[in-house]
């Protein structure tokens, strides 16, 4: 479980986050949604410690992550997996080396054990036999899957995903969403996904937080989102004619 309490983040004169509090439950897909510039990615970066919040606290279980220094954070960070918007695979390493990288640094496994784990993770994301390819030789969807394989290589307790569907076709997007949802249950992870993809929201949104102008504007599940009378949320979710038609059928 991850608890965030009254998170503020300011860049210069720009107040990006204005007092956001939420609880992300274990074993669930927690989605942070909102329009461009609403503060989704900044909130995610505050949670994982890439940004320090101007005010507020982040708790991983009972541990106050915000007050820890770099060394104190390492044990928690080894339990974190993250999939970045552009996958952020290491260009100079093969697929296999990318997945084995955290294992090389933080475990005492033998090379054979690490290789087994890398193969297992690749098989889990349906990328068997791609071990020796470099990131530049992969498609966007394959890069995302390698990113997921790397994120789960250490069997994390927490999975953070930034815009998993950006740049992907609808079919691949659904595959990635389903994979993340399956892994969340399989590893009993606390998964936090930043997205503005409505397919993801309706498909895997167990718990959804809607950000609007840096504030938490709405919280609920994908079952509740279609029936909300929140104006800003409705404007965001049902902006397209396709979604409006889908809402009328509900």
């Amino acid at each position, binding site marked *: 479980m991850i608890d965030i309490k009254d998170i503020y983040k300011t860049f210069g004169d720009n107040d990006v986050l204005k007092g956001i509090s939420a609880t992300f439950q274990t074993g669930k897909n927690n989605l942070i949604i909102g329009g461009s510039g609403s503060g989704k990615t900044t909130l995610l970066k505050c949670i994982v410690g*890439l940004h320090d919040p101007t005010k507020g606290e982040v708790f991983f279980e009972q541990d106050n992550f915000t007050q820890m220094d770099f060394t104190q954070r390492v044990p928690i960070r080894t339990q974190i997996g993250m999939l970045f918007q552009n996958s952020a*695979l*290491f260009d100079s390493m093969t697929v296999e080396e990318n997945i084995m990288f955290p294992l090389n*640094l933080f475990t005492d496994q033998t090379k054979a054990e690490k290789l087994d784990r890398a193969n297992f993770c690749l098989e889990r994301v349906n990328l068997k036999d791609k071990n020796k390819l470099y990131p530049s030789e992969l498609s966007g969807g394959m890069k995302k899957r390698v990113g997921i394989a790397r994120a789960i290589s250490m069997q994390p307790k927490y999975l953070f995903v930034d815009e998993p569907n950006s740049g992907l076709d609808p079919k691949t997007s659904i595959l990635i969403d389903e994979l993340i949802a399956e892994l969340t249950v399989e590893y009993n992870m606390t998964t936090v996904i930043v997205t503005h993809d409505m397919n993801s929201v309706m498909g895997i949104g167990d718990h959804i937080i809607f950000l609007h102008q840096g504030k938490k504007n709405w919280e609920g599940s994908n079952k509740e989102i279609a029936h909300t009378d929140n104006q800003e949320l409705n404007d965001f979710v049902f902006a397209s004619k396709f979604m409006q038609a889908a809402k009328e059928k509900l």
Partner: protein
Amino acid sequence: MFQSLGRYILLLQLSFRKPEKFSVYWREVMVEMVSVGIGSLGIISIISLFIGAATTIQVAFQLSSPLVPRSIAGSISRDSNILEFSPTISSLVLAGRVGSSFASQIGTMRVTEQIDALEIMGVNAPGYLISPKIIAGITMVPMLVIISIMLGITGGYIACFVTGAISPADYIMGVNDGFDGLTIRVALVKATVFGFLIASICSYQGFYTSGGALEVGQSATKGVVFSCVWILFADLMITSLML
């Protein structure tokens, strides 16, 4: 300026934190050493041979008086190569070749979130990315400078053969005459300091890149320009302090 200096010092501090796993860092050090050392050998060899040859011809031309022994051209060419041309010119060239590569490599990792990925994993990103480059810089640049000195003196010898500016025998006599070991020590101190400056300044510029491809290019340019300026400043300081 003071803010940049402070950030640079803090980054260096972070770079030399205890590694998460020594073996992984050692592998990176070896990779960087090969990249800096072997990768730069060709260009350093070419410029050293030509500068050594040109220096010898010019010195011989300027000392054409019958009152000055011809062999003195060999001594002056040797000392010029050891004290100035090999360490300084080589390092300026290395700032362009190696420094721009360091800055653009780290800068690209920054803008493509690869550095964020390292930090999320719990890796000390400055340590993993910068310390191997600094170690490679302070070990390989002195080695390249030693090779450069040897090739510079060889270049002078070849110039004597080809142009006949002075006889090869006079040149060899001059090279052997009045050799002071201090000049080699000065050259090695300069090379070590220059290697550190190239690696640390260019890595710093790359590490704090923000934006996209344009900014990566700007960081590489800034890294090369700043390291060249600091190399010349350090050259003056070391020369005045040690000679």
